[in-house]
């Protein structure tokens, strides 16, 4: 086993290729082969060309302040237009002196959404935050809020009913009787109100000047349509999803038919339907606000999509959960509210956020039926003859705002997906 040392000149091997540092990183990721190197060079050239052209237009030759569109002509981007119109784009035809109201409403909704994103808030506090936030938002937007007695009675009926079924056999007798009493007051009161025995009392709160929905516009409209469209669609989507999973053939048929019908047609057709057919559906003489029509269409549409997502969550639960709940002799509402939904909804939070992003973008379609959402006010800003001919600036600005909203939400949804799966990941 003796290794004779080789004699004479030894061939010198080249030192190993450096894989560390900036050069090493570039060698690995940009120039790992001939083809890769050529791709990199071509891409760098293309990006440099595009970026320099864009910056030349958007920054170096751009006009940032100008009295009118004429002064912008012949230069690059006319950001003066945005400077001139940004309040209209954000708040539409809302009375100019009162723009602080939609601004505060937007901030309230943002605060509401951001605090809902914090997992430490996922308990009873969230309900309080949403109730207070909704009250402030609509008080700011309308200026005057009037709650009829039927509204309070309906709330009492719904809350009492849910509490009565969910807490039966779980809560103390006092508590369950309290829920029962609440539901009974709601039901009896509503019947009395319909029979006109109870007078039409209402609670009026006048804080500011009344502003009708026809004057609303811009970002608050987009945010209200997306947020409340989805908030109202959520319970109704849950009911549809439960109905679709039910063993009762008639209920199942109704829910499947409704979901598939809505998912098969475009949102525009529902919006057109809401704008031309809702007035036909109602007794003659009743008028229904245009904004409300759009909201109804969005709720109908969103409900079907939410139902399908929640169905995914319901299907992902192991069968044992249902069987164990049955073995505990829980009633159907108890099983659903206490055992099934808490687990199913937890699974579907990330896809629900993605749906919210989708609806935030899709609310832009309401401009077809003449509602001044954020995209529509941006569109209207182009109409001014003093500032005609600069569509790219306005649309890029609107795109930037939409992007900020949607991108941050999609990042949050990604983060949440990882966070919620921590327990199950290998």
């Amino acid at each position, binding site marked *: 086993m003796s290794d004779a040392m080789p004699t004479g000149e030894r061939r010198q091997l080249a030192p190993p290729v450096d894989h560390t540092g900036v050069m090493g990183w570039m060698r690995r*990721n*940009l120039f*790992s082969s001939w083809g*890769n190197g050529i*791709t*990199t060079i071509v*891409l*760098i050239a293309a*990006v440099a060309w595009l970026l320099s052209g864009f910056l030349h237009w958007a920054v170096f030759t751009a006009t940032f302040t100008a009295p009118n569109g004429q002064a912008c002509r012949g230069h690059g981007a006319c950001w003066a237009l945005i400077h001139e119109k940004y309040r209209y784009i954000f708040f539409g035809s809302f009375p100019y002196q009162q723009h602080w109201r939609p601004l505060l409403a937007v901030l309230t909704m943002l605060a509401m959404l951001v605090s809902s994103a914090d997992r430490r808030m996922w308990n009873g506090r969230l309900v309080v935050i949403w109730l207070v936030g909704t009250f402030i938002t609509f008080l700011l937007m309308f200026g005057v809020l009037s709650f009829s007695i039927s509204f309070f009675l309906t709330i009492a009926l719904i809350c009492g009913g849910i509490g009565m079924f969910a807490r039966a056999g779980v809560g103390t007798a006092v508590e369950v009787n309290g829920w029962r009493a609440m539901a009974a007051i709601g039901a009896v009161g509503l019947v009395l109100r319909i029979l006109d025995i109870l007078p039409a009392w209402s609670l009026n709160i006048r804080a500011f000047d009344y502003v009708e929905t026809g004057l609303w516009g811009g970002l608050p409209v987009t945010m209200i349509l997306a947020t409340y469209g989805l908030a109202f669609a959520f319970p109704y989507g849950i009911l549809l999803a439960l109905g679709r999973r*039910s*063993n*009762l*053939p*008639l*209920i199942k048929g*109704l829910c499947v038919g409704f979901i598939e*019908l809505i*998912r*098969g*047609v*475009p*949102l*525009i*057709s529902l919006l*057109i*339907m809401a704008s*031309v*057919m809702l*007035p*036909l*559906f*109602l*007794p*003659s003489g009743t008028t229904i606000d245009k904004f409300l029509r759009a909201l109804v269409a969005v709720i109908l549409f969103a409900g079907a999509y939410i139902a399908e997502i929640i169905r995914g969550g319901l299907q992902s639960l192991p069968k044992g959960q249902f069987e164990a709940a*049955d073995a505990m002799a829980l*009633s*159907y*509402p108890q099983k659903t509210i206490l055992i099934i939904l808490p687990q199913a909804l937890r699974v579907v939070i990330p896809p629900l956020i993605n749906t919210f*992003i989708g609806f935030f*973008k*899709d609310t*832009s*379609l309401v*401009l*077809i039926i003449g509602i001044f959402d954020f*995209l529509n006010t941006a*569109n209207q800003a*182009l109409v001014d003859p003093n500032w005609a*001919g600069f*569509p*790219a600036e306005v*649309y*890029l600005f*609107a*795109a930037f705002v*939409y*992007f900020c909203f*949607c*991108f941050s939400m*999609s990042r949050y949804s990604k983060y949440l997906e990882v966070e919620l799966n921590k327990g199950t990941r290998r």
Partner: protein
Amino acid sequence: MAVEAVGSRSHTTRVAPWNDPTVRGWVFQIVIVGLVVALAWFLVSNTLENLARQKIASGFHYLDREAGFEIGDTMIAYSPANTYARAIFVGLLNTLKVAGIGIVLSTILGTLIGVGRLSPNWLLSKICEYYVEIFRNVPLLLWLFLIYKLISEAFPGPRQAINVLNSFFLSNRGLYFPVPLANPAHQWMGVAFLVAVVATWFMARWARKRQEATGQPFHTIYTGVGLLVGLPALVWLAFGAPVGMSWPALKGFNFVGGTVIQPEFTALLVGLVLYTSAFVAEIVRSGILALNKGQSEAAAAIGLSRGQIMRLVLLPQAMRIIVPPMTSQYLNITKNSSLAIAIGYPDLVASVNVTINQTGQAIENILIIMAAYLTVSLSISAFMNWYNKRIALRER
């Protein structure tokens, strides 16, 4: 309310009817269906009353009346003297045209970008990532407006049209280009092309069988292209090679002759493809990432090139994961093509909307829209389900 009907019959002790799940289930169903029917009756009776008050006759008779409106882009012969039915059909064909071309193009572009995001080239994968994030986080409608306004304002008018070889004219009225004059040869060339398609399909089948049996590969692609181009060319020669062309030329304020791709169509198609391909790219990427790493390593170990690994090993397997979400993207393209109405492209919804405004027959027209979209959506999902079954993993 309890729904577990199973097993209730095996009870030996009799249960009071109000505690029997079957009975309760049926009572609950009847109550709900009764409420739905009552709501429907309320809506229908209101509608009938309102229609009677506005003196609008219901029914589909209006479809036979003269439409009287122009449609900018038609695939079949149409004039304002035609009926509403034909106008709506023209709109439907336009919807199908945009959706069909959009599906093909966004699949191609989306797959390229999705594969590009997985490229070892850092710059390429970053560019693809930015593309995806930018396009899917901004509403489609905004892209459509932006592209449409850029086309109609950035391009010159017809008189200053960008002129390529005196035959292609690009202006804010669209892209005009020459087309062959109508000739009976074209129909026979079409027939020849169809024959070539069928022949290619049989040839590909035979070639695959032979390769499986003997291992000998066959140049399916070259032969196929030869057939598809060669057969129509032979027919063209057999008809004496007619070369008459209709050339676009500026006359007055616009071009005559040739044919045109309109700016509305271009904006709609480009917007749909750019937007949807961002979603397709994410589907393709996650489909490939879901595969076991061993697949690409094993393929590399037997000496396949990167392109071959992707084409022969990864994509066919990823297809199984990709197809179901892709189906919903195809349905989205079809439904999103209805945004055409916002930039003035005459698709189904746009034609029907004009019809509603002219006739006041809202309900019938909305039924037509829904029926048309449901039919198209169900056909696409039926086809994709069939395809999904075909490529699904056949397990023992």
